Structure formats: C-alpha cells, structure tokens
C-alpha cells in the first residue's frame, strides 16, 4: 500500500477513539473537534516516526516517538487552552488515548494470570515483562510528553 495513504488512514482512524473517549470524559461539545484533531495528529506523527522508511533519522523506538508526539500535541493544546480559557488537559488527554498501550498492558497482566494458573515458564514471564515494561514506558512517555511545555517553558507560571 502507498505509505501516504496508510498515514492518512492512520490519521483518520485515530480521530475516532479520541472523540469516543472524550465523550466518556464529558469534554464539552465545542472542544470535541480539537480532541479529534489532536488525537489524529499525535497518533499519525508517532506512526510516521516509527516507520523504517523514515528518512534521515531512521525508525525511532516507540517510546521516544510517543514522547515526541505527546510533546507536540501538548504544545498545540496550550495554544487552544489559552484561546478557549480551559486547562490544556481538557483537549490533550483524550488525544493521548489512541496512543495508550492498552494491548501491551492487558497482555502483561494476562501472562501473569497464566503463570498463576499453569505455573512458572520462561516464555510466559518474558511475555509479562516485555509487555509490562513497554506499557509502563509508553505511559510514562505520554505523561511526561504532555508535561514537557510546563517543565521547560511554563516553569512557575500557570498556562491559563
């Protein structure tokens, strides 16, 4: 498939969970479109950064790509927040949802349950550790990426 079409598909698909979960978080209606756009930008950016065909810097590890994508979304979120007089998290957390490593987290916990059921095996422990650590690092990258503008530029000042 054409890489550009794949990227566009990723962009469009990631907007759906961003809106769906923004509704679970009861984000006000006028802000939903910002959640969709930010979610799409974040996920598509991460998707592009982890592709082997990426020129110059090559494929980035998913954790680093997540950190960069979350940081970019956070900067956009601060611009909207100041325009809209609301905390940036209103837009940005729903936008992070498509990038949350749900499958890794569940696989790690299910592997632990399997160890309890069937007894220890190296393969299961490896599954649990690999997936659990990856889930932990991606979540940490999401949260730290969101906090980056605050940590670097708005150190003691409130954003809004």
């Amino acid at each position: 498939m054409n890489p550009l079409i794949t990227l566009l598909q990723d962009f469009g698909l990631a907007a759906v969970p961003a809106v769906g979960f923004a509704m679970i978080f009861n984000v006000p209606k006028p802000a939903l479109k910002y959640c969709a756009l930010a979610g799409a930008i974040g996920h598509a950016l991460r998707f592009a950064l982890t592709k082997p065909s990426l020129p110059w810097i090559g494929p980035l590890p998913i954790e680093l790509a997540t950190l960069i994508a979350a940081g970019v979304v956070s900067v956009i979120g601060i611009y909207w927040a100041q325009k809209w007089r609301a905390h940036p998290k209103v837009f940005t957390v729903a936008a992070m949802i498509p990038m949350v490593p749900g499958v890794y987290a569940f696989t790690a916990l299910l592997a632990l349950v399997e160890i309890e059921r069937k007894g220890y095996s190296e393969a299961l422990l490896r599954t649990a550790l690999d997936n659990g650590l990856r889930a932990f690092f991606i979540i940490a990258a999401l949260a730290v990426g969101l906090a980056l503008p605050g940590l670097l530029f708005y150190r003691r000042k409130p954003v809004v």
Partner: protein
Amino acid sequence: MNVDKVTWVKDDQREVTRLCAQAGLMLLQHGAESALVESVVRRLGLALGMDAVELVLLANGITLTTIRGGGCHTTARRNLDRGINMHAVTEVQRTMLLAEEKQLDAAGVARRLDGIKPFRYPRWLVSVMVGFSCAAFARLGLLAQGAEADLGTYVLTFAASAVAMHVRQWLASFQFNPLVNFAVTAFIATSIAAQGVIHGWVDSPKIAMSACVLLFVPGFPFINAVSDMVKGYINTGISRGVMAVLLLLACCAGIVLAMTVWNVWTWL
C-alpha cells in the same frame, strides 16, 4: 475595637474558605490532576482577598487553610469520586478566572459554583461512539501489522464494545463499585467477541478479542498518576496509579473468566 466589624471580617473569611473547599473538591471529584486543583484553589482564594491559601491533597480528601492578616481558617472535605468530567473542571476554572479579573465577588463565585451542573453525554451516544472507537482500534491494529482489512472483525468488535459500554454505564448508574463493574463488563465484552471466534466469523480473532476490551483501559487515571508524580504530588500519584492497576486487574479477571467459560484462548 468595633466588635461588629471583627465578626464581619471573620464571616467573610469563612465564606471564602468554604468556596475554596467547594471548588477544590469539585475539581478533585471530576478527575483534575493535583497541580491543577492546587493552583485553581490558591488563585481563587487570593482573588477573593486572602493573603495565602495552603492546601493538602489526599486521594480521598482535601484540607485547606486560608490566611488573612494573621487569622487562619482551616477546613477539611471528604472526596467521593464522581467520574471524570472535563465540563465541570472547565467551569470551575472559568469561575476562578472571572474572580481573578474582578468580574465576580465572593457571592458571585458562590452562585456560579452552585449553578454548575456537570454535563453528561446521552448513554446510547457514548456507547455507539465507544463501539466505533474500538472498531477503529481493531483497524489500527491490523494496519500496524500490515494486514488486509476484515469487515467481520470490525463489526464484531463494534458490537462487543458497544454492548459492554452500555452495560458499564447502566451498572454505574446503580452505584456499583467500579472494580465489580469493570470485571462484569469485561466478561461480557470478551464473551461476545468469543462467539465470533467460535463460529469463525472473523479472520483475525486475536485483534477482535483484544480491541473489544480497550474501552476498559483507564488511560486518564494512568496519565494523571504519572503527571502528579512528575510534578511532586507523589501521594495522590501513587493512589491514582494503584487504582488504575486494580481496574486493569479487575478487567483481567473478567477476561480470564470469559476465556475459561468459552474455552477460547486466542489472546496469548
């Protein structure tokens, strides 16, 4: 000294303390991160004429002291989780901003805070949108693997997650413990997805089984937990993180039970 004036000053400070507690509690109940709660409450108190506002946050309570001219008022409130609601958080923050711009006095802030009715989307709409979200996750999963599109997988994922989301909201309206709620609804979602696998409706059973439970991943509490800890609120961060992991474990219990009942072990 004029006794009347002294009582008036005290009542005034008591009212501001009460308003600060109300605002902080509302933020905490609706899923704001600790740094936001502290900054909004402090700025509200200062805008309403206090010299300083000091705040201690716990996962299930809030204690705050307002200080003016050497007089202190302290109050504590118990926190009951009301579910994440960004509308309520936005409204409380805008009230604080209006008070800072001197457009609202203490009485105005009280009226505005009392008038906040946390907005909720209609249940059926949330269920349908969450169904689409999980179907989109299934497509994203296939896209990442470079696999072909598979309509059966999307339809099955949509059905399983939309039904599970509807049951989750329905059970939540009866005030069930979220852990119980998540375990039961994860069982339902996995059971529906397992039917498709048993009857061979889908080409990629693993994707369908995993995508339909993604609505249970507590992304917001996890992100709040890490950002609390990064910003120095280790206590609330740990509480939120542990709660999020417990929610995931409850889901796991539901998933494993469903996989045992239907004997479908495609996940691992």
